């Protein structure tokens, strides 16, 4: 029998990282160095410490990564316990990110996980630039959109409008619902970004108000009547809080009354919660499958040890088992992962005027914009300290604030008003000053 290898914790992973292969990524350079570099230098951020996030942290910690951080604004609830396996009953009420990080570190020695108990928007953009790969375990389209925009904002294009490889911030993204899920790889500038294929996530269908008010037909209509119409009529000014059990009970009672009035069956407390909170059913097994697929892709991107998923995997276990890989294509005009929105300016335009312009620009439509230039805050709407520090810039010409650079990229964060919906967002803006040497009409034609 062949000689046995000395005991190693990465006994199994070593086979993949230390041995050459033929079906591997183009950059694969197998060896001890690769394994050690992965442990020492690869930094992965896990966004979300819920059903997917818990799995991702465990999977990454057991896939050769030692420097992990996790960000989540939520606290642990009892309904998490059927799948978020890092949490116990006694943890209910504690921040998810902190408990998840602690549990994985207790179990897997040598792994360091830094938790961030806050909203994703609370972090500077530069915080996200610190990671090699971002793994998304989220359940909301808005949050995915935000992180996607942040990761894409780091992408720079060369003078031929080709993306610069060293500025690409890869992401892996997972999502589940019941027995179904998806895992995808996003390499800004190479694959479609989240925004390029936003049509994959159709907006949630809402009931017309006249149906709720006049012709309710099913239990959900009665519940939404109580939640969206009756609540405001009765509680003038008091906002409905879905996490307040008294509020939920009130909506349930009203929905029952309305259902009785119209002879409609089926209003239950459980359904009331489901409709009002838009609860998506979730189970451990699907989260495990999707998170592990995302982790494998993270490992492949970081090490090149195998080919990567190109670029979207769907999993459906409802009727038998169906998996499918789809290669979606990039939207070359994408406002988020493209070269950026081109804005032409006079050199005299002040920062304040520029911020006002962003509200009107049809491709930006951003209010309350904060502006950064190469990581430097030109103007910050919040917190108050920063606002005060940067306020004096408002009256200065943007051209001067950009060190008289004829053409460069700025980042704007603020509220994006799109289709009557407000959301936090980030836009990359390519500012070009008119009438400056070196900028020709040819250059301008390439943008937009």
């Amino acid at each position, binding site marked *: *029998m*062949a*000689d*046995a*290898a000395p005991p*190693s*914790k*990465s*006994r199994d*992973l*070593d*086979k*993949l990282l230390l*041995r050459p*292969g*033929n*079906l591997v990524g183009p950059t694969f350079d197998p060896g001890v160095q690769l394994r050690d570099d992965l442990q020492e230098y690869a930094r992965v951020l896990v966004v979300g410490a819920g059903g997917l996030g818990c*799995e991702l942290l*465990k999977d990454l910690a*057991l*896939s050769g990564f030692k420097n992990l951080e996790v960000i989540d604004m939520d606290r642990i609830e*009892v309904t998490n316990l*059927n*799948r978020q*396996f890092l949490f*116990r009953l006694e943890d209910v009420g504690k921040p998810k990110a902190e408990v998840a990080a602690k549990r994985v570190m*207790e*179990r*897997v*020695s040598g792994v360091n996980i830094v938790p961030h108990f806050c909203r994703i928007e609370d972090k500077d953009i530069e915080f996200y630039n610190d990671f090699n790969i971002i793994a998304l375990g989220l359940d909301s389209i808005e949050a995915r959109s935000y992180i996607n925009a942040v990761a894409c904002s780091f992408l720079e294009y060369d003078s031929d409008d080709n993306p610069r490889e060293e500025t690409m911030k890869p992401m892996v993204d997972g999502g589940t619902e*019941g*027995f179904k899920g998806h895992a995808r790889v996003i390499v800004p500038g190479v694959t479609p970004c989240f925004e390029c294929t936003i049509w994959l996530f159709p907006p949630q269908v809402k009931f017309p108000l006249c149906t709720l008010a006049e*012709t309710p*037909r*099913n239990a959900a209509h009665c519940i939404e009547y109580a939640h969206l119409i009756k609540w405001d009529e009765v509680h003038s000014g008091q906002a409905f809080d879905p996490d307040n059990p008294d509020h939920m009970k009130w909506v349930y009672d009203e929905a029952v009354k309305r259902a009785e009035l*119209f002879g409609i069956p089926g209003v239950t407390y*459980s359904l009331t*919660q*489901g409709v009002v909170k838009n*609860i998506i*059913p*979730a*189970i451990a*097994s*699907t989260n*495990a*499958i999707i998170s*592990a*697929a995302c*982790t*494998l892709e993270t490992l492949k991107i970081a090490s090149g040890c*195998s080919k*990567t998923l*190109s670029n979207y995997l769907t999993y459906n*276990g*409802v*009727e*038998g*088992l169906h*998996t499918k890989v789809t290669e979606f294509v990039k939207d070359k005009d994408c406002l988020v992962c493209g070269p950026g929105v081109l804005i032409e300016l006079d050199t005299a335009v002040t920062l304040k005027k520029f911020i006002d312009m962003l509200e009107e620009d049809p491709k930006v439509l951003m209010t309350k914009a904060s502006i950064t230039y190469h990581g430097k805050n030109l103007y910050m709407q919040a917190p108050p300290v920063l606002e005060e520090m940067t306020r004096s810039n408002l009256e200065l010409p943007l051209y001067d604030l950009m060190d008289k650079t004829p053409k460069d990229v700025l980042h704007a964060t603020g509220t994006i008003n799109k289709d009557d919906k407000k959301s936090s967002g980030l836009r990359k803006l390519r500012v070009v000053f008119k009438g400056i040497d070196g900028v020709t009409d040819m250059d301008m034609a390439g943008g937009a």
Partner: protein
Amino acid sequence: MAEPKTKYDRQLRIWGEQGQAALEKASICLLNCGPTGSETLKNLVLGGVGSITIVDGSKVEFGDLGNNFMVDDSSLGQSKAKCVCSFLQELNDAVKAKFIEEYPEALIDTNPSFFSQFTLVVATQLVEESMVKLDRICRQENVMLIFARSYGLTGLVRISVKEHTVIESKPDHFLDDLRLNNPWPELRGFAEAIDLNVQDPVAHKHIPYVVILVKMADEWKTSHGGTLPSTREQKREFKELLKARMAAMDEDNYKEAIDASFKLFAPQGISSDLQQIINDSCAEVGSSSSDFWVMVAALKEFIANEGGGEVPLEGSIPDMTSSTEHYVNLQKIYQAKSEADYLVLEERVRNILKKIGRDPHSIPKATIKSFSKNARKLKVCRYRSIEDEYNNPSPAELQKYLTDEDYSIAVGFYILLRAVDRYAANFNHFPGQFDGGLDEDISRLKTTAVSLLNDLGCSGLTLTEDLINEMCRFGAAELHAVAAIIGGIASQEVIKLITKQFVPMTGTFAFNAIDHKSQLLNLC
């Protein structure tokens, strides 16, 4: 202890209290608790299965700390089964967890009756010889069995059960059971009482599309010799007719009628899938028939008699633009017919039970009712024995898969997973398991694969060098992320088998983590 209803809320919304009760009654046996087995059980313990029994004879080694979350540094040198069991127990105190420190292979050989106590056995990381033996035992004892194996960047999941029948298959998309093309007297009567030409615009736009289609179909029939639209041209014409009846362009009920008109054109009678089930020889029932087949026999009688070629009505209707009154009344009409059909079916079930010498009330009302409502969605899954799959391969299927670009890697791995077991039987280690002599392992595995392909009747075909190299590179590694995927899939299938809801996979799932073009191979 948390209120179980709250703790399990997110899954109760999927499989309901009945599904949960089935899980809580189930006793699961796990063979080998490496990461594949541990991850499978983790998902089942979280979901609240009744009990788990872990069988593994090995001690925790240093390498296990790098791929298994259910052990930690303090576990080194201890029984792996014991350590995994205690960490799993932490996840859910409602689950009874125990372990047996013994090698599964030994148990299979020395104590086959051990397995009869379980609802289901999850067998992980077994080689072919043990799989065949265990499969024979479990079939004998009527214990459900699922195999799961992780191997480098590949793996497989395979269910082995003689027969699995499903009443609540809960498909995502299924045509509503509205009987528009064959309305029964009460539905027709309801439609007749509503005037499509009502003057009041509010009333006009609140006539449910079911009524519009039933009435318009009758109108069409009178001018077309009693037949419904059948050609593409006629269907288009019918839709134009609907459009012409709109009083205003914003009438959603008419738009819905146009969109739903295909439901009117749908053929009458039962689907070919259901036809196959009622024609199955098991529908000729006797005293040893299962409840499911007794109900199928009754269903067959119903279709031939009272049903007039149709199954019992499902009874639920989709939401549609309508006044509340019309909608609620329509719902009542569908429910009443569904209830009446169910009562007829129940009577037939009781009579059949009597005839085969069983207690006529041995099948509960609720079960017959669910069967009656789901009659169109019944599923029967049967699985070949592992021995049969291995000894009587279908070369034509394999050849087809091997030459199909989308399948070739997955089926290549399927064959190589068998080849490595042959290899291990000959050389006492898996190819590439140790660091020395990789080149020799590669050429030996190649030879083994060629002779296996010959035995499978696929002598003309070869596997690519790249794939064989890759298999040796894997060296039987059990990577955590791959194990989590394989274990996740296995646990999802276990849940479907135990709750008897949804449809389990039929076939061998060959996992391909290289580009994720995994495939369900239809070999069993």
